[in-house]
């Protein structure tokens, strides 16, 4: 045990480890907060679709030799989020199919473009790292780190400020609209925040695993808690805990960060399932 702690302290001396932990916690916080809303609105898969769009855009940016892909990826993903959430609301089946189409299309197009145009010699590496996020969080540049921090702080602030509105829109959109709420605006805001968070969270888990960050904490918390506030707080705690443990475990054991976090989440989910059953039996 001591050895492990010593090793951890040794690793902590590296600035990129501290940065990874700090950014990881912030991303965990905002992805879990919004995750509750997305899961309840039946948008669990939106994360997947958006992250594929982000992947495709990253590919194009890389092929065009852009130094910072984030500046391109972010707006493109935001626009697709707004479009996707809009069609999803109009017609259920079409929204579903649209999501699948966009998701697969972006993935295929991105990969193809990377293959055709890539100037770098390490193609499979780039693809693999973007898809699974093995160590991306440990290799953030300082600029990316500050950008991530600023965006997550903004997302968290928005969420807290509009907490009650988001609740109302999620629980019963028609009722909220009948009260004169600008639900379109709030849906738009949720879409934008989702896109930003997905792009940020890709650093942590890669584009194939990013949904884990959005879905698992919320679903686990819902197994046990019965109020929106408790679920939100609990999923934030689960998420931060899972991400911190995931990063630490993977730097100690040398495992890929994204999949380590995802597997940890699955474990936490089963624990909460058990707790939920126990709670149900007592009542």
């Amino acid at each position, binding site marked *: 045990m001591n050895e492990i702690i010593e090793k951890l302290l040794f690793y902590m001396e590296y600035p990129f480890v501290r940065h990874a932990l700090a950014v990881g916690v912030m991303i965990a916080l905002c992805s879990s907060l919004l995750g509750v809303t997305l899961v*309840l*609105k*039946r948008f669990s898969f939106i994360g997947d679709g958006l992250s594929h769009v982000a992947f495709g855009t990253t590919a194009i940016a890389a092929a065009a030799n852009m130094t910072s892909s984030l500046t391109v990826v972010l707006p493109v993903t935001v626009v697709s989020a707004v479009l996707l959430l809009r069609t999803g609301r109009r017609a259920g089946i079409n929204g579903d199919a649209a999501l699948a189409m966009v998701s697969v299309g972006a993935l295929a197009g991105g990969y193809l473009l990377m293959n055709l145009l890539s100037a770098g010699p390490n193609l499979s590496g780039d693809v693999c790292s973007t898809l699974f996020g093995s160590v991306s969080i440990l290799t953030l540049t300082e600029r990316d780190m500050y950008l991530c921090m600023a965006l997550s702080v903004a997302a968290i602030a928005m969420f*807290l*400020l*509009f*907490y*009650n*509105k988001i*609740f*109302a829109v*999620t*629980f*019963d959109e*028609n*009722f*909220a*609209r*009948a*009260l*004169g*709420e600008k639900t379109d605006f709030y849906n738009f805001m949720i879409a934008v925040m989702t896109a930003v968070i997905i792009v940020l969270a890709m650093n942590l888990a890669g584009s194939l695993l990013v949904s884990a960050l959005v879905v698992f904490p919320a679903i686990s*918390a*819902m197994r046990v*808690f*019965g*109020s*929106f*506030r*408790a*679920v939100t707080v609990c999923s934030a705690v689960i998420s931060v805990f899972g991400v911190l443990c995931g990063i630490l475990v993977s730097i100690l054991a040398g495992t890929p960060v994204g999949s380590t976090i995802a597997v940890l989440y699955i474990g936490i989910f089963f624990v909460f399932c058990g707790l939920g059953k126990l709670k149900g039996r007592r009542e």
Partner: protein
Amino acid sequence: MIQIRCRDLSVGYDGKTVASGLNFEICSGDYFCIAGQNGSGKTTLMKTLLRLLPPVKGNILTEKSLNDGGIGYLPQQTPVQKDFPASVREIVLSGCQGMRGLRPFYSRIEKALAEVNMEKMGVHGLSERCYRELSGGQQQRVLLARALCAAKKILLLDEPVSGLDPGATEEMYGLLAELNKKDDITIVMISHDRRAVLDYADRVLHIGSVCFFGTKEKYLQSGPGREFLYSQGGKAYE
């Protein structure tokens, strides 16, 4: 006093007209029932009255004081709500949204209003309970309490007793009648249930191939009214 007046109104969505040629008034203190077959456009009409949908043709005039909040709405339950993790208090409080504007958090007055309405609907004891664990009747009463937080003068209800057992149905009607008589709140209700029309309604709007608007007594003698009674009766004795 007339609260809502519709002239030659056509309602629909996505460019399709569902019901047309509607002429009626809703007066304050009315117990107003909207009847008709499934798919005849009752819910669409209600959504149009709430300005969730734009009218296809014609216009809706509302009394001035209804424009800035004051309408309460009890929608049909959506599948999302069935397993929604929210406490009763959170849901009832969300009825206070309209008067809040952009203020992010609830004031003490709003919290007190929510308490009062939970008390009125008899769900105060459940205020920390999770919505999805409640019975159907309790859930409807919670949603009614939420609607009351927004409503000062008029309540629009979309099939408030569908899916409730006879006891809960009775309770619901009792609560509505009390709100109508004691608090002088106008009730506008979509209902398939014959009893609502027979026992409580003052006026009836029937939507269908033949439309009807008038008092209950006249409705029961009209063509659509007899049909309505017959279909309901047939169903009940099957």
